[in-house]
């Protein structure tokens, strides 16, 4: 129970530090040899947005609720799709162009559900996880309000 709990919390993380895609994919692959297909989505900071330069992006979260929302996304995805396991890591810090922001890794026996689940998770994360971002631009700071 305790080690299941740890495993689950490790599979869903909000952190300042950068992450390794390889390490997350390896951690996922270690959970089952039945995994035949792994899809990932990596969100990166771009150097412009809506036609303006972006110097940096500052992330903010509702600590506690954000992690809970991501854990419940994970449970729901494991229920909803024919997948074996998944991981979600989201950075909350200040990032610059090219920096990694979010990683979703989904493992399944077959690729169809892995693609479906991965896209569903990033779409749902944007709608359901209390994280906000402010872009620092030449014209000043600007809170991002849309879900692109």
């Amino acid at each position, binding site marked *: 129970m305790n080690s299941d709990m740890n495993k689950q919390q490790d599979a869903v993380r909000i952190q300042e530090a950068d992450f390794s895609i390889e390490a997350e994919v390896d951690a996922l692959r270690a959970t089952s040899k039945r995994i035949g297909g792994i899809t990932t989505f990596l*969100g990166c900071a771009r150097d412009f947005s809506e036609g303006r330069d972006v110097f940096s992006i500052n*992330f*903010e*979260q*509702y600590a*506690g*609720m*954000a992690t*809970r929302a991501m854990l419940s996304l994970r449970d729901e995805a494991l229920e909803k799709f024919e997948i074996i396991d998944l991981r979600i890591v*989201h950075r909350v810090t200040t990032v610059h162009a090219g920096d990694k*922001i*979010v990683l979703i890794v989904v493992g399944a026996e077959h690729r169809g559900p892995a693609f479906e689940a991965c896209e569903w998770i*990033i779409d749902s*994360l*944007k*709608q*359901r*996880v*209390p*994280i*906000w*971002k*402010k872009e620092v631009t030449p014209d000043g700071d600007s*809170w*991002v*309000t*849309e*879900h692109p």
Partner: protein
Amino acid sequence: MIKILFFGSIAAKIGRREMMIDRCGLTLADVVKEAGLETFKPLLVAVNQQQEHDLNILIQDGDEVAMMPPFAGG
């Protein structure tokens, strides 16, 4: 005591991140009004870290209420 938390553009607008209210019998709508956010749209609200859509619920002593603009993670 009710703890109100403000996030993102709302915290920037209000100029603070936290506020305490020491009154009983308030609905969620009352708390939104106390925070001066009754005209802020779209406003998302969470009670004890769960999103809440019903503004008529009663807020209890010790509850944590969050005032949030639309999320923008990812």
